[in-house]
């Protein structure tokens, strides 16, 4: 039988897209239950602050009212949490329980393609979740467009950062319950010590350097700058940190996780 196929195998971009497409289709299959919560969550948060907590916090934070300060932080925490869930529980379930990856790896995809497609998908979710928060913040007049429109792009990179570290964690995890350590031991502290709920300048001086190590700190600083259109040279350092974090942690994550997929 003569074979006249157009190529030896699909090109890289097509392979990465196909992985992304698979995740997108599964996610949008339940568009209501998957798509609504990202809008509801910030709504509930802002209601809690606006109706209750906000009355007690009258001091401005980094020149913002408290609701502005917290709102811009939430743009990033939502991206952080969605990418983290996607690449811990989500990845683990696809890998160990549903065996979806085994099916995908029988198609013309390498383990690297699959993992990188996964990372890009997590970035996309970061974008979407930030966008959802942005919509809510805009509706309440907390952020003014069009400057805020850049925030989802920072959300994309935040999604990438938290997906690579989540995948690295996943590569070590043997039972799904171990992720609880990651969430309570790493992500919850990050929520409080990255300048989301209060400025890190309020932290004791000896803790501040630690806050600078945390990835979320840099996302949040970048987002606030974007939303306020207040650019400064040190934002370049934040960007540099984000890029370096994605590349370095991503390198280890891909290489470790690959060994669990192809053995």
């Amino acid at each position, binding site marked *: *039988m003569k*074979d006249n*196929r157009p190529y*030896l*195998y*699909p*090109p890289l971009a*097509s*392979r990465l*897209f*196909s992985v992304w*497409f*698979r995740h997108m*289709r*599964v996610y949008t*299959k*339940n568009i209501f239950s998957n798509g609504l919560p990202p809008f509801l969550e910030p709504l509930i948060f802002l209601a809690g602050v606006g109706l209750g907590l906000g009355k007690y916090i009258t001091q401005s934070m980094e020149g913002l009212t408290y609701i502005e300060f917290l709102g811009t932080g939430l743009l990033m925490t939502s991206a952080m949490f969605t990418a983290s869930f996607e690449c811990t529980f989500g990845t683990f379930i696809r890998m160990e329980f*549903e*065996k*979806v990856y*085994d*099916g*995908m*790896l*029988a*198609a*013309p*995809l*390498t383990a690297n393609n699959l993992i990188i497609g996964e990372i890009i998908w997590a970035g996309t979710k970061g974008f979407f979740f930030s966008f959802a928060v942005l919509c809510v913040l805009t509706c309440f007049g907390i952020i003014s467009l069009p400057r805020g429109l850049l925030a989802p792009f920072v959300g994309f990179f935040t999604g990438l950062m938290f997906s690579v570290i989540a995948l690295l964690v996943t590569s070590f995890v043997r039972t799904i319950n171990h992720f609880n350590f990651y969430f309570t031991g790493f992500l919850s502290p990050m929520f409080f010590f990255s300048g989301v709920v209060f400025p890190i300048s309020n932290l004791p001086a000896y803790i501040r350097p630690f806050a600078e190590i945390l990835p979320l700190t840099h996302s949040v600083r970048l987002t606030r700058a974007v939303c306020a259109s207040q650019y400064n040279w040190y934002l370049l350092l934040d960007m540099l940190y984000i890029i370096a974090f994605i590349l370095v942690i991503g390198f280890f994550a891909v290489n470790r996780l690959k060994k669990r997929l*192809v*053995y």
Partner: protein
Amino acid sequence: MSPVAITVKNTSKSFGKVNAVANLSFEVEADTCYGFLGPNGAGKTTMMKMLYGKCTRGEDGSINVLGYDPAKDELAIKYLSGVVPQDNNLDEELDVISNLMVYSRFYALPRKAATSRIDYLLGFMELSDKRAARIRELSGGMQRRLVIARALMNNPKLLILDEPTTGLDPQVRHLIWDKLRQLKRHGTTILLTTHYMEEAFALCDTILIMDKGAGILRGSPAELLAQNVEKHVLEITGSHSVEAIADAAILQKVRIDRTQETTRVYCDDDQLLRQLTGRLEGAHYFLRPANLEDVFLKATGRALNERQ
């Protein structure tokens, strides 16, 4: 001789201290069906996974699949092959048609071509009325057929099936056998593992019996039968002693294989066995031609090993 689709030479693979595959060599001719038989843990699945790069192979040896080395060109091999893994790994969150549409993207099939290919495959595997069904609503047999349809997405030259019909009812099994025969006739090379001897007998042109990672017997089903086992078997259930009814002259001509509840007397001469049955008063017995299962048990032994 037809061209060779797969050549494996002196390939080994170990997981820690376990040698899953030990210095295995074999060759699969194009457009034939090649079957791996062997107890659980014999290394069949590992061998198959090495062919399409899901497992890395040990340092020595070489593998060539459709002209490519899986260590270097796994993508080319995967593009030309279809794989039906041991466990169904369909996307449970998607319906039948979406499962196939998503899979068609992996091969970068244009949407229109994918749609018509999927229509054809659903028809071929007799699943056309299940297009919109969710995976959970499908029976085990339908899920299996869907996994096979998915493997056929890119019109593969090589189809790899790991226990394609385990746990399925006879109707579905026969349907799958029919489809596999059709595929073979149209130029697909088929590689399969199975625990069902009748499946191997029905489909395979060549069979390789593996045990503890090594190939121990190979040949066509007919050759394996002719060369490795007597033609006839007398199966006696209960604790009858053959020695009590057979004299030394007969005992010399037969081979006896005994488990707790069954005694099997193997012999090329069925008249002799028939003679024996006359002396088996009141015992349950069954005289039958020897089959692949007898070859298999003889080759791999009756006792369970630590991997089973």
